[in-house]
């Protein structure tokens, strides 16, 4: 099988998965209590005729399977619904939030990947040394710390006690900026706390993977060969071993995008970072069901596509992978 047929086959596999996910999301949300029309008016008195008219316009007076197919049909036309709370299309709202989440995730991911690879390689090469013991213990503690709690502690310490860093949002409200650089600086200040907390957790996570796969690679025959050829230890480790360590590390990151997104959701909520995760949490607590359905579908699609890309990248990088 060539790469092209593999990609096409994988694309087709997404279809049934996506179909099943859409059914699950639809069923879950339609089982949820509360009347969406009542939610729209937030408890204000409305004449019953108006309620009936809106029900008819929204199509929720139809049987549930009809409603599902109407909804699915809209999804296929990239219509992800309309928020009753914000009175705007969900796709537009999500479109505004995605860049902010990506910013947070990409920065945090790049930083933690760098630290994790650096420390993980040292820990594996010098197994049982003090560095190894300390960084492994640190990773274990980082791994066992609830990230929302450490966020609260950081706010209490850095923002409240020391007054060093801003607590919420992406920019200081109502501040006049002298120049674009000043605005950027202000934005970067807002980034420090949320990204640092994400970095703490992810570094701990990635460190364990880097260390264990490095240990595995270092036992391989080709490393012995490289050393027997008289290569410098630095070359053996960075050119021969590290390449094969990075493969599982990068794929692992690709597959855990959903997990990263969920972790970011909690942090975004605490720091009022108006990203996708915070939007998800606030829509769920406001019971804004159309929005929730829209975000769920978009998130599912993002994860499916990220997984597909990871698979393709993996098979491109590693010639040993066969496409079957």
């Amino acid at each position, binding site marked *: 099988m060539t790469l092209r047929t593999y990609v096409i086959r994988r694309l087709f596999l997404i279809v049934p998965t996506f179909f099943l996910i859409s059914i699950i*999301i639809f069923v879950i949300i339609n089982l949820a209590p509360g009347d969406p029309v009542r939610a729209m008016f937030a408890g204000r008195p409305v004449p019953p005729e108006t309620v009936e008219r809106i029900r008819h316009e929204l199509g929720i007076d139809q049987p549930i399977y009809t409603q599902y197919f109407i909804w699915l049909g809209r999804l296929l036309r990239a219509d992800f619904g309309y928020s009753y709370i914000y009175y705007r299309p969900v796709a537009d709202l999500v479109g505004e939030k995605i860049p902010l989440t990506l910013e947070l995730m990409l920065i945090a991911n790049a930083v933690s990947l760098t630290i994790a690879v650096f420390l993980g390689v040292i820990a594996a090469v010098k197994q049982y040394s003090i560095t190894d013991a300390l960084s492994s213990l640190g990773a274990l503690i980082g791994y*066992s710390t609830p990230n929302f709690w450490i966020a609260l502690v950081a706010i209490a310490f850095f923002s409240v006690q020391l007054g060093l860093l801003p607590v919420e949002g992406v920019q200081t409200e109502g501040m006049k900026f002298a120049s674009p650089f000043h605005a950027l600086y202000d934005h970067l200040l807002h980034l420090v706390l949320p990204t640092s907390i994400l970095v703490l957790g992810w570094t701990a996570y990635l460190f364990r993977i880097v260390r264990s796969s490095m240990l595995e690679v270092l036992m391989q025959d080709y490393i012995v060969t490289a050393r027997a050829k008289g290569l410098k230890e630095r070359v053996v480790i960075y050119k021969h071993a590290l390449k094969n360590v990075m493969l599982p590390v990068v794929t692992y990151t690709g597959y855990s995008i*959903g*997990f990263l997104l*969920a972790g970011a959701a909690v942090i975004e909520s605490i720091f009022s970072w108006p990203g996708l995760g915070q939007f998800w*949490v606030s829509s769920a607590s406001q019971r804004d069901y159309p929005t929730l359905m829209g975000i769920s579908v978009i998130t599912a699609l993002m*994860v499916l596509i990220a997984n597909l890309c990871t698979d393709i990248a993996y098979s491109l990088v590693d010639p040993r992978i066969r496409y079957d």
Partner: protein
Amino acid sequence: MVSRPHAKSARAREIREVHKPSRATRLFITWRKLRKSALAVIGFGIILIVSISALLAPIIAPYDPQWSGSSRRPPSMENFFGTDNRGRDMLSLIIYGARISLYVGIGAVLIEVFLGLTIGMIAGYFGGLIDEILMRISDVVLTLPQLMLLILAVSMFKVRGLHVIVILMGALGWPLMARVVRSEFLSLREATYVEAAKSVGASNWRIIIHHILPNIMSTIVVLATMDIPWYIFYEATLTFLGFGDPSSSSWGVLLEKGYMYTTSSWWMITFPGLALLFTSLGFNLFGDGLRTALDVKVRE
């Protein structure tokens, strides 16, 4: 010389005994390996402390959880961890909270193991169409981030009870367990001893329960131990974000309340968080040690 059949069978028994140590012996060997790792022993100690606090909460806790004195008093000799906004003793609340956290972690893991084992077993042993269908379902459950799926699922219910959350977490947590069990079954299915059991006419269920299952128990135990802190975290996170059971007094609820007093009463968020960290560290240390002792290789 005429061969004596009973002598042969005695020899066979001897061989069997050498190769298959009794359950008690295996437990002892595992324990001996575990004991060598200081970290695993510390982990075990932590789990023990948390379990004892949970079991003996009425005896250990200095105050009744409903007792109330002056509110938001900082840590002192009377209230080691201070008091909360309703004047309740934080230390006592945290000790009682251990009950909830352990219930959440262990309860959800039991459901996860039950579902994961059953589904993985069926998929891996029978293969074919059943396998394909079950694995597609697990794909679907794995696509949405677990926390988001939990938030969605919890919002289906009007009443957000603790039991509902435990059941939902277990019910949505099975796919990874099922996959590991499945892949173990796929390889063990071809083992010679399974072939031998088949050739003497053992039924499918007998093979699954008596021949394959004992060989994957250690993998399951390690995975389950390391999943317990995750469920405790998920419950705390859900509660903190406002999707939990506000009537319980889990560590998550304590944190959520403390969040409003972050600026003035640091003890209200510090101690429940430390309790979470401590418990999770215990299970992770113990799980790591167990994995090394039982020589389980699980992809993280």
